[in-house]
């Protein structure tokens, strides 16, 4: 029975893709944290990862773009990619900002976003267990928004 439930849950899991631009420590921590949290929060999702935008045009599932390495604002590569897209509704932007030892979490709707996409922002501070609730918050919000787009 248990095996059947796990198997069914695996079949019903829906895909989304996470795009990261550089193999930095922050990007690797954030992306592997997303993967761990899917399991921990029992989200009915399956994630795949891609480095750069080269494969994104062939992906039809929701796409999460990690914007990192900055204290604020948007990476010019992401800005240029998003401006080249006619339909940005399947994109979610996750801003992992460099803010020292400060925990921070906020969301921005499409209407208020300068990039014209759903945005989730958090700080890149990782120090378990102090920062775990912040990271759990933004990943939970991310999973909720991904499921809305499926």
């Amino acid at each position: 029975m248990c095996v059947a439930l796990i198997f069914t849950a695996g079949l019903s899991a829906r895909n989304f893709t996470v795009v990261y631009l550089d193999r930095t420590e922050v990007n690797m921590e954030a992306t592997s944290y997303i993967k761990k949290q899917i399991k921990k929060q029992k989200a009915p999702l399956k994630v795949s990862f891609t480095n750069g935008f080269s494969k994104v045009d062939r992906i039809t599932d929701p796409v999460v773009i990690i914007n990192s390495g900055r204290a604020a604002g948007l990476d010019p590569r992401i800005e240029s990619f998003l401006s080249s897209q006619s339909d940005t509704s399947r994109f979610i932007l996750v801003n992992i900002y460099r803010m020292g030892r400060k925990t921070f979490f906020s969301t921005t709707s499409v209407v208020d976003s300068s990039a014209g996409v759903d945005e989730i922002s958090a700080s890149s501070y990782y120090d378990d267990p102090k920062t775990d609730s912040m990271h759990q918050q933004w990943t939970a919000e991310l999973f909720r928004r991904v499921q809305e787009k499926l």
Partner: protein
Amino acid sequence: MNRLRKVGVIMLLVVIVSTQLIAADGDSLSPSFLEYMRGPEMYSVLQDTHKILGYTSAALGIAACVFNPVLVDDDLHKMFGSAAAISSAVNIGVGLVNYGDRVFSPEHEKAATRDVLHAALSVAGSILMIAATGVEAEDDEGFSGNFAHAALGIAGAGLMASSIVFEW
């Protein structure tokens, strides 16, 4: 010297494979494999492996120093020493694959100072541990005898342990 040769070959293979994974851009390995190995899925697996192997290497090295032939059977000492040298060599390969770009990339120059020191200390520690397994105390006399074996082993384990402390 046979054991030294074996450990040397293992270390050489590990370095060749790991540097290929860092340098290759789809030439020697299929891009999907490379992308997977250096992607987020493997990052946390290799992160945990690196941590476990690092602690294991230092612990085995220290165990080899503590359980020396003066106190215990020589075979036990040899087993700890060889295991420490092999696990440290493998761990350098794992570290290169997972964190190599952090150490070598000029973009991360300032932020990577701690990582560079960690890598330098652990590579030096591993080399000394391997050298210690080659300079076996009972076989040799003079400088390459008891003193050299003990000095190389203690220094190797010490450097390995201090490289872990740098990352705390």
